[in-house]
């Protein structure tokens, strides 16, 4: 394509990306390096339905001029990033010098909100992503080898978990694992422990969140692989069969190599999606046991007092996290492109 036609060809999408992706990210970045102006607090008498008492309020007149001049607030640089509710640089150093064992150091770090969130986020990402890829592949191969007549309904049922809204799907599972729910009661029976409760135990809650993650995302891997399976070269398969390859060898040497590029694609999408795990934590009311970066942003914005700068800083850290996660795959893709 000529440079000129290429330019006109990509202009609309480039403009849209600039408007809907680039500018919002810039605005989040700007927000994250600012904090509110210093608030002047004065002691006042407050009266409500139940009587009067001494309390405090913000002296609006004292900061009105300052606010009008710098509506964004005061510039803070990376102070929000390094404070305890984010990267906690000072606390990190303190824990490092104070703790006397790795175990102790780990426990201290997990007590900090950012590290607590990132530990669950990473475990979730690296457990769910491979399982989704493997299970999606298995389901795709199984459906593909089913009799043509039942393939339609099979595909429909395999896609169901993805069709159900994440919040609703997670809520269904939440009630099933309740101590009085189908799965919860079955687990109690199997474990022989009538007090077993998935919702009360941190390890079980983590497992349940990951089971949900796999259940919800497997259809995505399945449908991509299933589409890929339709384009497997039948001649190569035939030749393999003539050479005496059994079913496993056919999959190993013909089908898997054929689907490998798709695996890169699914891995990319799943790493990105799973790193932003959010809905199941809300639906499972799991915040006492597991939090994620996206949940932290939600929590900052959901309180009586919105913490915009804090949420913005966490958002930027999430973007950086996604970039780091995707870099190996992206580098690989780039090298392959370069070779060509």
């Amino acid at each position, binding site marked *: 394509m000529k440079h000129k036609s290429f330019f006109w060809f990509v202009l609309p999408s480039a403009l849209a990306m600039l408007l809907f992706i680039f500018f919002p990210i810039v605005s989040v970045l700007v927000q994250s390096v600012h*904090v509110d*102006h210093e608030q002047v607090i004065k002691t006042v008498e407050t009266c409500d*339905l139940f009587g009067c008492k001494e309390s405090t309020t913000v002296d*609006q007149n004292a900061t009105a001029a300052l606010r009008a001049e710098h509506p964004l607030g005061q510039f803070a640089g990376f102070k929000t990033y390094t404070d*305890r509710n984010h990267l906690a640089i000072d606390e990190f150093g303190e824990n490092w010098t104070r703790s006397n064992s790795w175990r102790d150091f780990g426990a201290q770090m997990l007590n900090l909100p950012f590290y607590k969130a990132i530990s669950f986020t990473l475990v979730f990402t690296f457990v769910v992503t491979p399982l989704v890829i493997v299970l999606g592949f298995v389901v795709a191969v199984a459906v593909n080898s089913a009799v043509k007549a039942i393939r339609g309904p099979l595909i429909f049922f395999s896609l169901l978990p993805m069709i159900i809204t994440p919040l609703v799907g997670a809520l269904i599972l939440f009630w099933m694992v309740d101590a009085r729910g189908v799965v919860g009661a079955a687990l109690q029976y199997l474990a022989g422990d009538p007090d077993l409760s998935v919702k*009360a135990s941190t390890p079980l809650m983590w497992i349940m969140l990951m089971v949900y993650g796999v259940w919800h995302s497997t259809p995505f891997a399945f449908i991509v692989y299933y589409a890929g399976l339709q384009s497997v070269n039948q001649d190569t398969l035939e030749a393999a069969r003539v050479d005496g390859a059994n079913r496993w060898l056919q999959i190993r040497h013909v089908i898997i190599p054929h689907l490998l590029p798709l695996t890169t694609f699914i891995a990319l999408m799943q790493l990105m999606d799973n790193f932003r795990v959010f809905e199941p934590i809300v639906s499972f009311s799991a915040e006492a046991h597991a939090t994620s970066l996206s949940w932290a942003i939600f929590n900052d914005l959901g309180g*009586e007092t919105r913490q915009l700068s804090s949420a913005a800083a966490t958002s930027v850290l999430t973007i950086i996290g996604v970039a780091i996660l995707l870099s190996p795959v992206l580098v690989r893709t780039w090298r392959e492109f370069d070779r060509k």
Partner: protein
Amino acid sequence: MFLKKVTLASAFAITAGTAYAGCEISGNVSIVGNEFPAIHTVANGAAACTGGDVKINLTADHQKINVDGMSGNPAEYTSAIIANSSVVALMNADVVRPLNDLVAAHGQDIPKNQLITIDGNVMAVAFMANAQTLAYRKDVLAEIGVDVPTTYEEVLEAAKKIRAAGISKYPVGGAYAAGWNLAQEFTNMYIGHGGEFYKPGTAEVSINNAQGVATLNMMKALTEYMNPDFLTHDSNATGAEMEAGNVMIMNMWGSRMGNLMDDEGAEEQVYSNITVGGPLTVGGGSTPASTLWWDGWTVARNVSDEDAVATFLAMKNGTSPAILTEETMGQAVWMIDGYTPAPVNDGVFAAIAAGTTSYPMLPYHGLLHTALGGNLADFLLGKESAEQALADAEAAYTAAAKEKGFLN
């Protein structure tokens, strides 16, 4: 566009409903508020005014839109219906106007105690009250031969007996869901222990003290008698547990007692025996371990004086004695003349009579509430000490307060 249609449609539906005593306004009114029956009644009352356009947007997400919706000039919403915890966010952003002039000109008949006054400025007009108090099963207490508890220590004793008698394994209920609810329970219990949240006159937090530790220990003792899933139970779930006949005794919102005591969602044996008591005390203190709440309305700063007058008159009409009918009487503990309380409201009145403190209406308390909600669960799960949990909550609050400019 869609939103606008919905708002219009609901406004039409509302004006088509009951017509209230004459109210004539000249100006535009736009109300944002929470979504529950009592608020609907108030909004309907405001919409009954003629002569101006009254738009209504009631949603459970009102707190996410009211500050932004009132920040523009002119503001999208001319009035926000809020509670004592959320009026602070509006005042911090300086988007609500003092009502002194309007009260002097048009509101002489509003009872003085309904005016929420801060530093001499009327910032809101309250119309209903709420508080968490005891709810118990009188048949169960009679069966084990225990008087109605007045302290949390007596609740623990009763719970022990109920469990020993094999009536229920987890007889105590409580909205202990991690997050807002858990922080609210801590706030109640800490006030009951006589704790102060801040160093006087400053935004510096001080909860990591003997009262704080005693508070957490009492909460932990109560959770021993709660369903093991307590960290996922909000007030809806706890109410359902009581209606299911599992929970026999709990601390519950006055506004939810009606649901517990009606004949829906529970067997007769259960709902006919659920009784409302007063607020509980703890640790030998005399201040109830509970907080008083009010709901009220405000008028936006960034609207024309004409619209402000119209809004004031409409909201005044919406909270006037005229809105009290057979149907609306039971929707809330109305702080309006002519209100006659029903038995479900006994708890809130007992809480007021017992000198319960109001929920702190401080500019930075929302940040502490969030910090408490996120850091206390680790102690209740047995993962860390009470001191550590309180230190974590303090540190999380301090970082947030620095970011919001309350601390340096």
